[in-house]
Each structure stands twice: as structure tokens, then as C-alpha cells.
């Protein structure tokens, strides 16, 4: 069994994560000192198996009982990761070409990613609530980044956002598209194909944008 802390700011430790093999377990006499609160948990084990602490949280409810919306039904909270192939690819492209990446490093970044997303989201959400709004918007996200020490991402993100808006703007007449303030009049030029894979399946096929926007208007 492997215990992980996840989505640190908001969630408690939940039970084992499927798919991570974890044979080693240290007897519960260790727990006497495991007085840290919800967060800090175990080392990543699997093939290492060196250092694993068992968390004593009988008091914690299982991850499936979270009082969230119904999205949990198919996923356990700590299992919500981005696909490792995608993550690994980004890592690979970031490090020098001949560099290697250990498998547990990839898995671990996968988890860090989920943590990062939650970290940003809860900060953005808080700001949103403070301003009595219900929908998290782009500004909330950018603000959260800045607050949490990722201000180095903000400028590049603004550029991407601008391009994104321009692309949407080319879809005049699409209902339900939220554009934010209007940006630029020129449409995307030919060197620019920024549309997320999730939106468009084929280059130039823009009708799928409708699907995307509709589905996110919940």
C-alpha cells in the first residue's frame, strides 16, 4: 500500500494509489513519530522500498467520500494525473537531448503536476470567491501564478492567451465562447497554429471548437 499526500492545500491523505506497486511497509511502531499533519507522507516506494511510512489516518475518510461534485465516481482523487506519456515527452524535450529520465522521476513529476494544478486552482478559486464570483477566469489563474511564485510564467502565458483569443475570435458566431476583452483584429497568420489538441482534431477543422466550448460551459 502506498500513501500519498495529494493536492496538498486542500486534501487529506487518501488510501493507496492503484497501479503503484509497493511491497514494503514499515511496522506501525514508526507511527509514534509520525505526528505530522495530513500532508507529509511516504516516500515513493515501488522498486526502492526503502523508506515508507504508514500514515495513521483512521479518522480520515476514504477518498471516495469527498463531498465534491460527482466527477469522483470514476476516479479516485489521487489517481487523477495527466497521462505519463505526455508528461514524459515534455520532460524529454526540456532536458538535453541525450539526457535520460528515470522512470520514477517521470511518475513523480506526474504527481507534482497534479499538485501544481491544484495549488494554482485553489488559490485562484479563493480569489474568485473573495470577489463573489463563481467562475474562475484567466485573470484569476494569472494572479494565482504570480502570488504563488510562478510569476515567471505570467508573461509567456499572456502571449499564449492572446493568441488563443485571436483564434477564438476567428470563430465569430460561435455561441458560448468566452473571449474576455477583445484582442487584436488580425486573425491568425499561417505560421500560427496554436489550437490545443483538445479543441481541434485536424488542422483547419474548426467546427470542433463548438464541442469544446459547449462542454466547458457547465
Amino acid at each position: 500500500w502506498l500513501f500519498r499526500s495529494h493536492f496538498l492545500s486542500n486534501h487529506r491523505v487518501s488510501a493507496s494509489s492503484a497501479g503503484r506497486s509497493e511491497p514494503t511497509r514499515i511496522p506501525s511502531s514508526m507511527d509514534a513519530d509520525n505526528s505530522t499533519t495530513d500532508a507529509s507522507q511516504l516516500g515513493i516506494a515501488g522498486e526502492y522500498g526503502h523508506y515508507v511510512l504508514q500514515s495513521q489516518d483512521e479518522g480520515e475518510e476514504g477518498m471516495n467520500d469527498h463531498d465534491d461534485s460527482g466527477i469522483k465516481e470514476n476516479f479516485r482523487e489521487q489517481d487523477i494525473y495527466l497521462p505519463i506519456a505526455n508528461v514524459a515527452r515534455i520532460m524529454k524535450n526540456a532536458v538535453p537531448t541525450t539526457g535520460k529520465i528515470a522512470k520514477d522521476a517521470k511518475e513523480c513529476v506526474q504527481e507534482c503536476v497534479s499538485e501544481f494544478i491544484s495549488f494554482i486552482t485553489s488559490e485562484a478559486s479563493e480569489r474568485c470567491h473573495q470577489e463573489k464570483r463563481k467562475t474562475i477566469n484567466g485573470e484569476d489563474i494569472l494572479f494565482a501564478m504570480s502570488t504563488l511564485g510562478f510569476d515567471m510564467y505570467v508573461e509567456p502565458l499572456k502571449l499564449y492567451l492572446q493568441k488563443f483569443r485571436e483564434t477564438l475570435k476567428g470563430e465569430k458566431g460561435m455561441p458560448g465562447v468566452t473571449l474576455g476583452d477583445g484582442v487584436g483584429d488580425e486573425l491568425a497568420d499561417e505560421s500560427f497554429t496554436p489550437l490545443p489538441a483538445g479543441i481541434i482534431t485536424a488542422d483547419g477543422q474548426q467546427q470542433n471548437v463548438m464541442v469544446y466550448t459547449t462542454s466547458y460551459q457547465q
Partner: protein
Amino acid sequence: MKMSQNSSDKDDQSPGNKKGISLPISRVRLIMKSSPDVSSINQEALFLTTKATELFVQHLAVTSFNNGSGKETNSLSYSDLANTAEETETFHFLTDILPKKILARDYLQSLEEMKEEDADF
């Protein structure tokens, strides 16, 4: 309507997607929604978060690689990541999910030492 992007979630190979996103947006959204009190997320926020996540992965990978033993060994290991989380302020929030691995006996030993220290007070 069907979320057609599910089928193309893992696919960033589409030829036009040079400057696009290589992470599945729907999954990002799922993770975001799992935060408490999040009711809805607008499209831009989702896009920004997804993009930021890419930047984050790159940032974390490069920083860990450069700071750690990576430069000599030309590889990135778990402990590079754990060290980076501890040493780099930006990544401090990861320290709890990136504990350094130690041998159980070393841990037990340091426990002993801690108890002795406490006893001195």
C-alpha cells in the same frame, strides 16, 4: 455533445499543432474540479492552466536536471527532483510529496538522535 477531445487527448501529433498544447485539457479540468469549492472554470482559465502546467513540467525538469547530479550523469533521477523541491523556493510546495528517500535504519537512527536532543531541553 460528446467531448470529442477525449479521443485526441493523448495526441498532440496533429500536424498543425506546433505551438499548441500537448496535454489533455479535459484531464486538467478534472484535476481542477477536484479542488473544493470550485464551481466553474472558464475556457481561458483552463487553457492558461494547461499551458502553465507545460511550463511547469519543463521548468521542474530543467531545474532538477541542472541542479542535481544530472549534469554529470546526464540523467534525471527522483532524488534530483526531491533536492530541487527542497532547495528551490518556487518548488517548496512539493516537498511533502517528494520526500527524500532514506533507508529505514537511517531514519530510525535519526529518530533516536532526535529523542536524545529533546531530552536535553
